[in-house]
């Protein structure tokens, strides 16, 4: 079994209005040193082991559904765990 962590963020060149709002709130808390805030999504997937290559499967999930690659980047971490 695999535990997969997927991280999705807006692409560098895409303006993040949520991040900008949070950044200005942090500034008003006197954390003026904050330079940039980017808000993203974090997902945890538990996946049974099959014959399919796990890396290929996760890539397809990200490309087709979990991320919209027009505006978002993704990365993931795969950890193999023993099923309980």
């Amino acid at each position, binding site marked *: 079994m695999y535990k997969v962590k997927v991280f999705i963020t*807006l692409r560098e060149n*895409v*303006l993040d*209005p*949520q991040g900008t*709002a949070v950044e200005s709130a942090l500034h008003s808390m006197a954390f003026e040193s904050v330079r940039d805030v980017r808000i993203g999504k974090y997902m945890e997937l538990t996946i049974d082991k099959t014959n399919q290559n796990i890396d290929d499967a996760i890539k397809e999930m990200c490309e087709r*559904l*979990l991320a*919209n690659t*027009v*505006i978002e980047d993704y990365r993931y971490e795969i950890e193999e765990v023993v099923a309980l």
Partner: protein
Amino acid sequence: MKFAVIVFPGSNCDIDMFHAIQDELGEEVEYVPHTADSLKGFDGILLPGGFSFGDYLRTGAIARFSKIMPEVVKASAAGVPILGVCNGFQILLEAGLLPGAMRKNRDLAFICKQTQLKVENNTTMFTTSYKKGETITLPIAHGEGNYYCDEETLSHLKENNQITFTYHMDNPNGSLENIAGIVNENGNVLGMMPHPERAVDCLLGSEDGLKLFQSIVRNWRESYVVNA
């Protein structure tokens, strides 16, 4: 002409769309659930606004994997007129039937108000009843209408004259180049954030949306008669 209004869980402009077609345009219309597997017999397909699947993950992202969507893709390839309004536009983007993506509105607020639009292209099957450059009034109601595409796609949209409507004077949501609506390369799929179906009677504050539906019917009849 017979229209299908696709109903997703969370669609909330389906009834307005139905009313616009049946009562204001005077054409045939039926609701088609997202679980249906055929669009046979329909001459036009309407994807209404709303919050399909609760806008979970991204707007339109779940709806685009509905059972009916492969049929919408097929109809698109066959040249059937397809109109996606608001969430319908977002679904068309996620499905890859139109290029680009939606971001949250620039100022993060959900915006619900009348907007002034400019008809950039009046040669599409959706806009021939308008004059080129005409300013029309349609309402918007969305939190994610901030259209984005990369530079290459944008120049492609411009070259092919695919930008159909732009926000006039005031850009409410920060969309790239004031884009409010675009068509696909073939010109048979239109996605737009403003709601033409909510502007079909002067009682509603504007009837500027009616011409859009009239354009579809007129152009469909012309091609139908020519091909018959």
